[in-house]
Each structure stands twice: as structure tokens, then as C-alpha cells.
């Protein structure tokens, strides 16, 4: 059964320096509150996995939490670059960042294979791409039945998965609605999982085929209202597209980034951050 913890306790208990951490949410339901708590607790040497690093990993990389990034699209959606990610890759600031990059299809398959307990994922992918030349985790195998050449990548098996969802019931069953991305797969692929939710309710109000993650498949649940801002939670609040555009200016420069981080993360508690 999932344990109900404060966000501070969940992060301090279940995320350690050096862990491989997957914080998912495909544009929607990105677990920003948890990311900020990881920054506040000054976790280090994390291997961060995420299809779209987005602002959350830009902030964590700029804050010095990461030593390695596994990803498939590292931009600020519709705006441009992730400047902290670029600064780490191009200039090694604040520390050198190793990167391993895939395509979306490969990462989606790798998460699903992780959830399925398989060592690898197989897909019809990477044909003609240079990505296999720079990522030694992309191999090709021959289908034993047809002889077709297919791409293979290792499954994603993180130490910890962190996701945000709309709500949990009092037993700790979680409902994810809207763009459900890869969250269920991330939780099931990981050894441990932290789920932040907008609220706890008596009844999830889930339709029969809804994306519900049972309590017994989750390690810890923390309430974090507005915990995915400036991303969004369908049914609760909209994506703050204006902030995504402002971020370009904040993150472009190391000093403005550090001032932002101090004011909006370090000088706030988990509860204030949520409010």
C-alpha cells in the first residue's frame, strides 16, 4: 500500500544521491513541486531520465543535481532552447553533464519494456539516423521469424519514478487523466515511486477504463496542490504558457537563473512552493 508522506519526507526518504530518477509527464502533469524539493534537498549525481527534459530538468541541471541525462527531446516546447541544459552540455556549467539521447519512440518503448519486466524493447526505428553512432545503447537485431532488422534498446528501470496526478483516494489509488503520457509505465518500471497529487478525495470518480494506478503499485503519495505549475493539471489549472516564454529570458543567463532559483525554490518550503 502507498504511504502518505509530506513531499519533503518522500523525497528525503526515497531519493538518494547517485540514484537513477525518472520524472515523467508528457508536457502535462510535470512534477515541478517534487523537482523543486529535490533541488532544495541538494540531491547530487542523479541520472535523470525523461523524454522531454522541459523546464523541470533545466532547473535541476542548472542547480547541479544531475550527472547524466537520458532523453529524447530537450527543448522549451514552442519557445526554443533549454539554456541550462545547453550550458551544461556545451560549457560544463555548473558541472559536466553526460548525455544519452534517443528518439521518443525508443524511449516510450523502453519504459513500456521496463514496466513489462523485460530487459529490452524492440521497435522499427532509427533507420538511417546517426543516433546509433553516438549512443551505444542503440543496437539492431534480426527478427527470428521474418529476418527483419529491428532496433533494440535496453528497457528503462529507474531506481525512482516521480509523477504528478490529479488525485488519490484515501487508500492511495491514483487517477491520471488527460494526456497520460508515460506515467503508468514509469511507475511500474521503477523500483520505488513517488506520486504527488492535487488532492485526496473520497471517491476518484474514475470511469471504468480510466488510467488508475493502484495503491499497492505505488511507494509514496504526497499532496502538492498546483504541484505541476507551470505545466498543468487537466481539470484543475491551465498550462502557464506565458511562463514558458519568460523562462527563455530567465534561463539564458547564469545570474538571472540563480536569482530565480534562490527566490522561487531555495527561499520557499515545499508547502509554500505548492501555494
Amino acid at each position: 500500500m502507498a504511504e502518505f508522506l509530506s513531499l519533503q519526507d518522500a523525497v528525503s526518504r526515497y531519493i538518494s544521491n547517485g540514484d537513477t530518477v525518472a520524472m515523467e509527464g508528457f508536457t502535462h502533469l510535470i512534477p515541478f513541486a517534487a523537482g523543486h524539493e529535490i533541488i532544495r534537498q541538494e540531491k547530487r549525481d542523479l541520472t535523470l531520465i525523461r523524454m522531454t527534459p522541459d523546464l523541470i530538468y533545466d532547473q535541476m541541471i542548472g542547480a547541479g543535481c544531475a550527472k547524466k541525462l537520458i532523453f529524447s527531446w530537450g527543448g522549451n516546447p514552442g519557445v526554443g532552447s533549454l539554456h541550462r541544459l545547453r550550458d551544461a552540455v556545451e560549457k560544463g556549467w555548473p558541472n559536466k553533464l553526460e548525455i544519452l539521447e534517443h528518439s521518443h519512440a525508443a524511449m516510450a518503448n523502453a519504459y513500456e519494456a521496463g514496466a513489462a519486466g523485460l530487459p529490452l524493447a524492440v521497435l522499427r526505428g532509427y533507420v538511417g539516423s546517426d543516433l546509433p553512432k553516438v549512443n551505444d545503447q542503440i543496437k539492431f537485431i534480426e527478427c527470428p521469424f521474418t529476418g527483419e532488422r529491428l532496433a533494440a534498446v535496453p528497457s528503462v528501470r529507474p531506481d525512482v519514478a516521480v509523477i504528478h496526478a490529479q488525485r488519490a483516494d484515501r487508500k492511495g489509488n491514483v487517477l491520471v487523466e488527460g494526456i497520460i503520457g508515460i506515467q503508468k509505465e514509469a511507475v511500474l518500471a521503477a523500483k520505488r515511486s513517488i506520486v504527488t497529487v492535487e488532492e485526496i478525495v473520497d471517491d476518484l470518480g474514475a470511469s471504468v477504463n480510466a488510467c488508475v494506478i493502484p495503491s499497492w503499485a505505488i511507494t509514496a503519495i504526497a499532496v502538492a496542490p498546483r504541484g505541476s505549475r507551470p505545466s498543468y493539471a487537466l481539470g484543475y489549472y491551465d498550462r502557464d504558457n506565458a511562463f514558458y516564454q519568460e523562462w527563455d529570458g530567465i534561463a539564458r543567463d547564469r545570474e538571472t537563473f540563480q536569482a530565480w532559483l534562490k527566490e522561487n525554490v531555495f527561499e520557499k518550503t515545499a508547502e509554500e512552493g505548492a501555494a
Partner: protein
Amino acid sequence: MSLEFTSSEMMSITAARALNNDMTCFVGIGLPSEAANLARLTHAPDITLIYESGTLQTRPDVLPLSIGDGELCESALTTVSVPEMFRYWLQGGHISVGFLGTAQIDRFANLNTTLIGDYREPKVRLPGGGGAPEIATNAKEVFITVKHSKRTFVKDVDFVTTVGFGRDGKARDNVPNIGKGPTVVITDLCILKPDPETKELVVTSLHPGVTRDDVIEATGWEIRFADQLDTTPEPTAQELEVLRDLKARTKAHHSGQ
């Protein structure tokens, strides 16, 4: 009596015209999304638009800033998980057109969205592949729209993120279960199509007011022109009105929150 329009508007409207009602289009964010929704709001009201965030058959009222804006989900027929999107709907063969943008494109329509310079020591790090590498091979054909400049149109891309026809034009030969690849590239200057034999991009139509020299100047290789070189039809008043309304609505929406 000629209408006033910008080269960007000419590009979006021409790209929109490449789409039709019967297509199932996997839409990239940015210029492809603008063109695809313009098509839906003008001549192709029943076109099926699919975004990689899992939104199937979506009809957004404003253009999404990201691939996963709430608007896409709320106006979709249904929303599936990301692995389902890539495995069943794309790899499963349900996409007729992949519509992509790019940072760099070369004479064989290979796309680079990974980096400029050397991989280990990049001059400029770009976002990376995202959905494009598999959209380009698993969709039945690929349309590309991108602004024309010497920086973008290079002889050989620094990195093949997403294959067009490979470094030699032959990357798709004898590969089973692969789409036709890029069939048209629409820029703010012209329309290009791959030569049926060599697969090298050839200009087939110049936009109104654009000269051969304009295209030569903006292309990083010795660009060829089709023997039968057309002039792209001008935008209509209705196309321009719908496009301008869409862009104004979108701008107000994204800055107003």
C-alpha cells in the same frame, strides 16, 4: 487587385494546401501545426490530426504552444498513452502523412535537429530527435516545411537525426516496411520535390515574386530547377483571413494567461 501577403503566410498557406480531407496527419509543433490547422479550417475540415502527446483526431481552436497543451486533449476524439501512440498508431501503419519542421535540411532531405558542429563538442546544441526519426520512416510519406536560408539548406547536414534519403539518396532502398519518405518540402520561397531517380531535392515551383536567384542565394548547394518550373498560386483572401485570425487568437491566448 493582387492581395498583400508575407512570405511566411505564403509558406503556411502553400503547406496547408498540400494536405487534404482524407489524410491522417502526424503533426509536428510549430510551422507544421500552423499549416495543418489552417488546412482543417479551410479546405480540409475532416482531416485527422494527431500529435505525439497521444491526442487522436484533435481540433484545437488556437495553435498549441507545446505538443501537449490542454487544448489538444480537450478537443480530441480520444487521448492515448505515448507508447500506444508510437507503437499502435504510428508504427502500426495508420499515419498517411508525417508533417515535420527542422533546423537543417540537406540535398537528400535528411533532417538535423540535434546539433551544429561535432557531436562531442557541439557549437550549438539543438533539442534532438523527439518523434521525428520514426515519424519519417513509419508514416507513408513525409511533408516538410521550413524557412529557406543558407544556414538551414546545407549540402550535407552535420548530423542525420531523421533520415530523408540518406547521405547517398539510397537509404530507403530495399528496406522493408518503410514509408516513401519526404515527397515535398515547402519553404517561404518555393516548393521542392525529390528527383524520382536520384532523390536530390529539385525546385518545382517558385512562389509569386520569387526569382531563381533568390533560391540559389538561400541554398547551400547547387540547387537544380525542374524543366517544368511552376509558379505557386497566390493565397486567396479567405485563406489569409483564416490564417490571420488563427494567429491572432493564438497570440492572445498564450500571452493572456
